[in-house]
């Protein structure tokens, strides 16, 4: 989120000074130039994001035909209201990024929960075949990386290095 609300603050004492003497308007040409440069850079960023924004190895996280059907089902049933992928989504249920490959879980476990639900998760109105597509979709996520990041090294610059990821380039 962008936090530019400081803008509307009117600091009265300074403004009164400004109106007594100092120039108050910033040239329109300068303004337009700044905006143009920013928009140009944004266009470059957009092109790069659409074409080469991942750092995963080839094949990781790619969506097969089955997984694409699964993606549509995931959206139609609004799984995201309760679940997260890489920590993004709703907060009622667990993150599903690695569920199909986690120790003690796996594709059959996931399929079972989707079809039959639990005390906390309602059974989803899907056919067994559809549950299979959903699992294929979740497995595409599992192949793309690891989340949550439990093994890390903090750096002095406020960043971290992830130590447990085998999917990156």
């Amino acid at each position: 989120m962008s936090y530019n609300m400081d803008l509307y603050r009117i600091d009265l004492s300074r403004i009164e000074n400004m109106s007594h003497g100092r120039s108050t308007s910033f040239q329109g040409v300068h303004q337009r130039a700044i905006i143009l440069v920013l928009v140009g850079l944004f266009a470059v960023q957009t092109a790069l994001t659409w074409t080469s924004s991942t750092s995963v190895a080839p094949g990781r996280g790619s969506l097969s035909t089955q997984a694409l059907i699964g993606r549509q089902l995931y959206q139609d049933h609004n799984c995201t209201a309760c679940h997260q992928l890489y920590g993004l989504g709703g907060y009622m249920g667990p993150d599903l990024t690695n569920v199909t490959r986690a120790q003690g879980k796996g594709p059959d476990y996931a399929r079972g929960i989707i079809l039959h639900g639990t005390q906390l998760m309602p059974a989803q109105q899907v056919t067994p075949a559809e549950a299979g597509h959903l699992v294929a979709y979740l497995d595409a996520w599992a192949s793309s990386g690891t989340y949550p990041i439990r093994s890390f090294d903090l750096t002095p610059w406020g960043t971290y290095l992830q130590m447990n990821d085998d999917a990156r380039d």
Partner: protein
Amino acid sequence: MPAIDRSALLFLVFGVVSLWLGAFFGLLGAWQQVMPGLFDVIPFVKSRPLHVSLVISWIFMVAVGGVYHYLPLLVGRPMHSPRLVRVHLFLWMILGLAVLGSYMLGRFGGREYWEFPPALGGLIAVSWFLLVYNFFRTAMQGRGPWPAYLWMWATGVVFFLLTFLEAYSWLWPRDDANVVRDLTVQWKAYGALTGSWNMLVYGLALVVMERISGVTEYARSRTAFLLYALGFTNLLFGWAHHIYPVPSAPWLRYLAYGVSMTEWILLARMIRHWRHTLDGAQRHQHVLAAHFLYASEAWVFLNLGLALLISIPAINLFTHGTHITVAHAMGSTIGINTMILFAAIFHTVDRVHGDTGTRVQYVRLGFWLLNGGLVLFWLSLIGAGMIKGWYTLMSDLSFQDIMVMVRPFLMSFAAWGIVLFVGITLLAVHASWALLGPFLRSRPVPVDRSTEAYNR
């Protein structure tokens, strides 16, 4: 003095209705989290998107209504096409009903907030074209360099449309579909979309501030423009702080980290100028609108602080995917956006009727319930997030075990939600009554009674 456009006021009224309904579903969702199975007619899978879509509609309805309402006054001419304003209003009412209906029937967009089945999304884009066209045709009529709020509105209307369309780009089939890119593009779009509505809202705040203080130089100063440019830079390049843990290209993350940190400048400025702001507050004590603006100021301070902290990757590692994100989202949409929008509404009411109505004491009560409730609501979410973040990373406890520890915080969150809801109800009832007054009493079209000069 130009006549006040009724359709602009109706945007505000429908916005308020949307807020109240949205808050209702939020309250329902909050209780469903701690009491699964509660009110199964509208289960959590429906109440959450109903909540989020309706409260975001509140922000858009009032921000856009505010543009339609103030722009003619600022430029000194009526909107280029008042008919298109009515068409826009009509489209949004139809869309609102369609979205409610589709969620009730269990048809979701299913990706993020303000995400609808693609057909409805297409209609929203069309309605937004009307706004972009009408906005520029009207704003271009003014003379001289634009004050900062016009830049902010221009940015808001254009970038909302661009990013909203980008958010649907997944519909475009591609052979190399990849979940990581999918998510990255999604958040590029949504980060900028949030920035866009903030541009609309902060532009509105700047206008209301200018109107109640009578000081017109600030919005035309170099400082105001440069601060706007800083916000714009963050809108364009800061979005990847939402997706630090996603294996997207590293340069995106470093760029976002660097850009996000420039906002410390804003925080530092706030601290430096704090005292002056309070001075200003005393001068305008009688104005309800000013109260809401000062409340928003305090919330800017708290939420900007939180946002800056969670934009540092090493801290984000612990807070990402926890209720701290929800605290950030609701802290700013309620504390900042909602306060500013109420300021604009009560300022409008003031001007249209020449007074704030007779029930100021209820508005004040609502104001305090909303703000007081929000403090504890916000702290409960931060508490829940800290527990979840810490134990998820630093222990081997399962999700279920961690949620048992988080539960008391979620109970507290849901309980303070009741206080919030009562406050919102008081404000919504009073605001919509005050806005609707002239229509119900079938008075002639209200005119702007203020004595302020609107022409530059």
